[in-house]
């Protein structure tokens, strides 16, 4: 019997995977890689929106050290991570435990908790802005209770804390869903065994639930710390384009936006700032993942 000739596709074995990758690679290169490399290059130039700029070495980074706004922004972005991440790791887990139970009407609560995730951050921030206004809903309630008014939107620290609360609240549903998936994989027998051994609800939470979903907690911590460090919309919308009273609530990404946009935008300096944001966010991510690996050992 004669053997059939080898199929034509064999001769392209080396190139065909690349052909399949090509559309994706093209998109990533054009909209991800190329802008990234351009930003890295521009960070070392004095480019402006309308002028390409010349090589200035580390000038932009040196200037950053003298820039009072940079330190304020770095502090705020850092605080955002420090205060937002613990809440986004813990609260959604508790929420997931609550709605995990097959009670009547629980689907409604699951959907309700998820709603803020779907809502536009702009709309949500505007609503919060109205609620926190000196004559808004929150201060109205405080007044009835004989307290306040609290200047949520006029005091730099309260403003930042309000923005953090908004970020935590808006992210609850998203991380809750991630936790729900993880909780579904926790063997029921473990809980039963612990209960038989006389462990209470708290003991079971610490001893069974937390270890079982620990890798998910690390994932949530990594995701939320990077997004908290890069916060823009919540603070921009609540504190206004100047970054709160006297710019005291400016975050790093807001500073990038302020310096790099407009016709006189300092693109070189803004690129240098972006690079700093990128490196710190990357380090944060690695730090969280490393902490996980250490515990594994």
């Amino acid at each position, binding site marked *: 019997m004669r053997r059939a000739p080898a199929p034509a596709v064999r001769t392209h074995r080396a190139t065909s995977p690349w052909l399949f990758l090509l559309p994706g690679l093209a998109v990533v290169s054009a909209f991800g890689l190329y802008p990234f490399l351009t930003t890295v290059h521009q960070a070392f130039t*004095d480019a*402006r*929106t*309308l*002028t390409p700029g010349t090589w200035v070495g580390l000038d932009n980074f040196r200037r950053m050290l003298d820039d009072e706004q940079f330190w304020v922004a770095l502090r705020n972005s850092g605080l955002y991570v420090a205060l937002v991440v613990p809440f986004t790791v813990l609260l959604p887990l508790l929420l997931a435990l609550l709605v995990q139970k097959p009670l009547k009407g629980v689907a409604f609560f699951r959907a309700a908790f998820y709603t803020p995730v779907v809502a536009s951050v702009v709309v949500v921030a505007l609503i919060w802005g109205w609620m926190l*206004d*000196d*004559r808004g809903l929150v201060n109205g309630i405080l007044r009835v209770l004989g307290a306040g008014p609290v*200047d949520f*939107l*006029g005091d730099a620290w309260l*403003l930042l804390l309000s923005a953090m609360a908004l970020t935590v609240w808006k992210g609850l549903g998203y991380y809750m869903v991630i936790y729900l998936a993880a909780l579904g994989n926790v063997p029921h027998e473990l809980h039963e065994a612990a209960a038989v051994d006389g462990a209470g609800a708290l003991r079971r939470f610490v001893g069974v639930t937390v270890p079982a979903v620990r890798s998910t907690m690390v994932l949530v911590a990594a995701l939320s710390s990077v997004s908290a460090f890069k916060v823009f919309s919540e603070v921009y919308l609540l*504190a*206004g*384009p*100047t*970054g*709160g*009273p*006297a*710019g005291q609530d400016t975050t790093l990404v807001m500073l990038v936006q*302020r*310096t790099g*946009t*407009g*016709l*006189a*935008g*300092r693109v070189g300096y803004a690129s240098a700032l972006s690079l700093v944001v990128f490196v710190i966010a990357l380090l944060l991510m690695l730090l969280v993942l490393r902490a996980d690996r250490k515990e594994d050992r």
Partner: protein
Amino acid sequence: MKWLDQPAEHYADKLGADAAAGTLPDVVNVSPDLSHPLAAAGMLMNLDKEKAAAAFKDEYTPEAWQGNALPGLAGTYAFPWYLNTGPLFYNKALFRDAGLDPEKPPKTYDELFAAANTMARKSGGRIATLAGTPSVEDFGRYGVRLMNDDATAFTYNEPKGVELLTRYKELYDHGGLDPQALTNTPEKAGQKFLEQKVAMNPGGAHDLETFKKNAPGLYRRLGITDAPNNTGKPNMYVMGLAVNKQSRHKAAAVAFAHYVTNRKNQEAFAHKVAVFPSTRGSLEDPYWTRDDGTDEGRVRVASAKMLKGAVNYTPVVMSDEMKTVLKNEVAKALQGKKSPRQALDDAAAASNRLLKRD
């Protein structure tokens, strides 16, 4: 001819992207603060140097042609298009409640500060007079010299500027400004005026419709006056149409920019929207001189009158970043974190540094 409308929001970014990519349209709508960086980068035609364009110069009011001239660049870089000036709205009922004459709104800064102090005292700090902090236009109208003659350094930190900020600081301490004045955007300030939480707010003729629809109660007690002024010269905003220097259809572009901004078209445009023509003689038309009894007519006639002798106070070299610098330093002074003198010195120094790197 292809006409593209762009929303005002992020317009500067859109122009920047187009300019950087070499796709700037043949004719561009610009205000002087936008035309300055474009012209400095050699992207706009100097109309004074282009015979075909300079020939039209006399069709526009001298103030408008001058308003599109750019310091340090020796020339006018845009055909004057429409002008605008904002009235200052005030709440007559709040004035009356505070024992102030609702028919005699403050005309000078002295009167403004006096009225605001009375308002704060009589309302027990509940009603503020203004919702925002002083802008660069306020410094201008107060009589502060904003820049040196060749526009290479800011001078609003001179004693006159310090005096204005010191008085605003006193006003803020006494409750004359909204507690959130340091962070209020113009939209938020407008909202507070609508809710009758502040007594005065700058605006434009288009706001009347909003008041009528959203706050009929306020509309019935609405007072309209000019912004307080110590110089006798009101502030105006100028819009222009610039021609792309690299345009491949220069003659057509000049002709089109002139066509849109000629007297006939400017007047027709200003009949449709609440703006004012910059062509010579236009504002003498009865439409802008005779009060037809409506509120729109009243605002229109009052604003048109203000435009005579008005100037664009905002220095054209002042970028958005420099405006933020000033706003944030003013806020520090109002909070008492810095003395007014120190705050203005710091703002001017930081802005001058930004200016030098142009």
